[in-house]
């Protein structure tokens, strides 16, 4: 239990650090983001294995875990990476190597990740929401919140009720921000599982801390 708490604390701390690293002058640092995501991953594994040990053998693992391995390893590097299309879309060919470029042109991940406006609008609502790549592409905050309001208005899911205080820990505001920002992610991400994550449906069976964990994990992934 102690191990679980500690692991959760480290995960929360890591998410906080990731969030703050975006605000740094000079933009998102790839190496730092990679290191933070490595710690996140270790903490998560520790948390999950501690949870498994703590559980009785008969009770199967909560189904919440199944979408995560699919989401998490697929997207984990995105926390460290520049914006890249997560869904099946063919990424536009990367800008040419430096030596072939016209002088003054800069190879930018923005070019890969920002196709024509209407397509990117759709993509924006996925894990590439402004959270992660604000450091890499111009912020589209207003538009994203519009979308979120449209899509998530009537559906404020029960599963995303404010988490219990134990999970909020030291960062209640961050938890709320994450909920608000990424409720859109959970609702309409094209790459997300077609059905809402089972953990969120199986409210009676799942401990409140788990849904917070999932939100946090997805938040990290979205970075």
């Amino acid at each position, binding site marked *: 239990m102690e191990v679980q708490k500690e692991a959760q604390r480290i995960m929360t701390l890591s998410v906080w650090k990731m969030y703050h690293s975006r605000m740094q002058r*000079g933009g998102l640092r790839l190496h730092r983001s990679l290191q933070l995501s490595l710690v996140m991953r270790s903490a998560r594994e520790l948390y999950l294995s501690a949870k498994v040990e703590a559980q009785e053998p008969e009770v199967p693992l909560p189904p919440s875990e199944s979408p995560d391995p699919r989401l998490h390893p697929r997207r984990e590097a995105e926390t460290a990476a520049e914006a890249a299309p997560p869904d099946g879309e063919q990424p536009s060919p990367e800008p040419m190597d*430096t030596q072939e470029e016209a002088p003054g042109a800069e190879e930018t991940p923005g070019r890969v990740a920002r196709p024509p406006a209407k397509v990117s609008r759709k993509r924006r609502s996925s894990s590439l929401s402004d959270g992660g790549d604000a450091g890499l592409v*111009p912020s589209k905050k207003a538009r994203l919140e519009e979308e979120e309001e449209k899509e998530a208005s009537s559906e404020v899911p029960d599963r995303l009720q404010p988490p219990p205080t134990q999970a909020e820990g030291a960062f209640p505001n961050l938890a709320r921000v994450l909920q608000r920002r990424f409720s859109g992610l959970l609702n309409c991400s094209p790459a997300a599982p077609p059905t809402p994550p089972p953990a969120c449906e199986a409210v009676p069976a799942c401990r409140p801390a788990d849904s917070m964990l999932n939100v946090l994990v997805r938040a990290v992934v979205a970075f």
Partner: protein
Amino acid sequence: TADIISTVEFNYSGDLLATGDKGGRVVIFQREQENKIRPHSRGEYNVYSTFQSHEPEFDYLKSLEIEEKINKIRWLPQQNAAHFLLSTNDKTIKLWKISERDKRAEGYNLKDEDGRLRDPFRITALRVPILKPMDLMVEASPRRIFANAHTYHINSISVNSDHETYLSADDLRINLWHLEITDRSFNIVDIKPANMEELTEVITAAEFHPHQCNVLVYSSSKGTIRLCDMRSSALCDRHSKFFEEPEDPSSRSFFSEIISSISDVKFSHSGRYMMTRDYLSVKVWDLNMESRPVETHQVHEYLRSKLCSLYENDCIFDKFECCWNGSDSAVMTGSYNNFFRMFDRSTRRDVTLEASRESSKPRASLKPRKVCAGGKRKKDEISVDSLDFNKKILHTAWHPVDNVIAVAATNNLYIFQDKAN
């Protein structure tokens, strides 16, 4: 905070010492020559030139500010009276020429001493202008600007032994430049995965071999070093040698992965060895042996049990540099509490010294320090818990020939000399 020193580098002769800071400024110190009038001043370094190398910039496409902080300075070998150095921030490398002017021409025919053009009708005689001495003026001018070649943040630059080319490395790519050509660079290493989701490691440092102009090494965040030979192929994605020490399973911890990240790699002057710095140790590698280092020196092993706190206060991400002395018999690196460590490779002795005003009266000897890792603290020892983690020595440099070292402690530069000098 703009004064925080971010890089320190001696030139090839050791007569000049350059520092770069967070505010984009470069300050160059020059060693005083032997002087009969002031015998003690021999060996002192005084300010020679100061200039603003980089300014903050804004990348409009990405809505990102580009910091002006100088990440690295590397000197070019001197070829004439002027001095040249490369300085880089996260995105742009600049070649600076530092030249002296100590004479001024007087007696022009067409203009007055104050520069005004003379009335042609009043010029009745022709004279040859005379060079008169003037107060020494040191001018720094940017001669080349190498821009727009790095998507990620530049962490290293290294001048090749051919004195014509140099490399610049960012998190995922290494580019080769010709010093005369600014609009083109060749990408020689690219570790960017096709799918960024598969990214597992980044380049943390790179350097050219001191004598073999076709050889370079680069270190990674996974604690490995790759040696590349540019003769084997144009794109050095396949290494010629791969240096990695197998992980000691007993020391595996939650933060093992991130403390194994190499923050600096330096060839020895001889070119036979290279040294790497990870969070807790310095390792010396024989280029002929890839399986493990030939020496491992613990810098501050007492921090291993504090990694969680160091993660919380971000110190675990600190990137320490390391350096060789002129004869490759000793290595030096920094630590916390303004401590720095020197390891003598031949005698296997090491010493911890402190760079602080209190402990450094001019011409006094530095007293060795000791950190008490646990148990009873002896007199004069410092306990781990009272170390100041805000006082970190990330950048140190050793004179290429003499026993003179430069140690950057936040925004102060300390220069220490061996008494025997």
